[in-house]
């Protein structure tokens, strides 16, 4: 009986990695590269920030700036849309200058890049965007569309579900 139990435990221990590897998809090289860029950028620019799993909101100068401005106005009127929902809100000083310093008060976790390197980083996103991070890897991303910015900004800030059609789902663990 004891032998059988031991055998069963061994069998389970042997099978577990196999089961999990069935679900494992190697991230594509572009995602791996962008994830590495992101991790390294965060370490270098915000050395005191502890990178953890979750969603990160970006307000970038790239893309449709009118859309970004529309979202900024929306968020200033409805800060609860983003409050407490993101691990950090990232923005560069030059984007702050274009919008207003008020954006820095939208939540307690706004990280402002005074070097403006953020706007030159190749994370595969533009304008108002979200990256979902798991195990230091980008697992999903989305950037706001013109239609969302103008008609329904609130819906953009719904959490990314990995089956969501609106986000760009990235193959990962």
């Amino acid at each position: 009986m004891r032998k059988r139990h031991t055998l069963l435990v061994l069998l389970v221990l042997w099978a577990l990695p196999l089961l999990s590897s069935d679900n494992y998809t190697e991230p594509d090289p572009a995602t791996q590269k962008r994830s590495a860029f992101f991790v390294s950028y965060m370490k270098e620019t915000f050395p005191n920030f502890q990178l953890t799993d979750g969603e990160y909101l970006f307000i970038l100068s790239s893309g449709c700036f009118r859309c970004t401005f529309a979202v900024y106005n929306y968020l200033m009127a409805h800060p609860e849309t983003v409050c407490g929902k993101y691990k950090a809100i990232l923005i560069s000083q030059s984007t702050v200058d274009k919008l207003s310093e008020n954006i820095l008060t939208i939540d307690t976790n706004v990280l402002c890049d005074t070097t403006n390197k953020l706007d030159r980083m190749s994370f595969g996103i533009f304008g108002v965007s979200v990256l979902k991070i798991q195990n230091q890897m980008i697992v999903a991303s989305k950037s706001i569309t013109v239609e969302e910015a103008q008609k329904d900004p609130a819906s953009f800030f719904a959490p990314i579900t990995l089956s969501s059609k609106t986000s760009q789902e990235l193959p990962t663990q």
Partner: protein
Amino acid sequence: MINVSAQTEERLTYPIDTLFIPHHITEICSYYSAVEKTQVNTYFFIDSVGHAVLHYCVNSLYPTTSFVLNNTFSNYFVVDRTKVIVRYVNDNHLYSIDSSSIVTNMLEMELGMEKEQPFILMTKPFAYYIPVTQDSGLLYARRILTSLSDYKINKDHRLRKFSKPMITEFSLNNERLTAYRGIGHYPSAHLSEDSTYSHYWFWTAMNKDLDIVAAYFFLDSLYVVHRNNMQDRYPLKSKYQYHVNETIDPNESNNYNYLAEKACESTSYMYLRYDAYRDLYYVVVSKAMTYENEDGTHNDAADKPWSLIVLDSEFNQKAEIDMPNHLSKHELMIVPEGLAVKDPTLSDKNNFCFIIYNIEL
């Protein structure tokens, strides 16, 4: 085309002077004015009380006259040194403003058959609408292409729009601006089934014969619309363009990363200028560069290295001059001594430095 060696190019163009404009200037235009019968440069800056000031400079970088405009204007059309026509935000009327910045007239606008085709009165220098009047009081405006993203995904819409003339001619008197006729036609590439480009609009210049010359970002031709509405096409080809520019994937037309990467990695033609002093045309070649760098940063298409194609009065390409990369290809003006190019390294927020390059063939 005549191939010019690097050594010869040095003789063609070299710095001869440095000029400072004591403002942060924007919306730079440089064009031949049929009214002044010479070169005019115009630009804007915001004054200390927040008004937009338009400097109108004849044969110079410095103002002959100035117009102070309420900052809420949406677009404008410089008629001559005494008059500018302005349209304000949320106001469909046109106002004629004199150089004392007094509104002298409110103009009616009659679009007639042009109603279906929205237009913009001058003048964003990036698109470089035609800011010129003729002696007979005619004005020209590039037809604005509304809903550009729609053009990229809606083929029928695009083909219908590009089947119409590209420029609207207006007659102007003290009471009204009247759409008179449409002239010029779009390149056949715009009408082909799979011609999805990032940009469809064109750069324009008018020469002393009042021909309207047009250049497009991704097409290696110049298009010349004559007064009789006949149109000619001339080759325009940079030595740095190694392959035909690809069209874009219509499904990615709202993906700014994709568009930024395409813009960076394509050779493009920009800022067509006519130099009335030397009877030459200049076209900026924005050379292709890698979008993504090894360190995770990406480059900006605005910073691409550049050269300057020089064409003679018959549209023959005579030289392509490599320009120093620290100079801005986006801020070019023409003065009697040569080509004025902004040097950002010698400029600050409120003081723009222009290097004057001698250009001779």
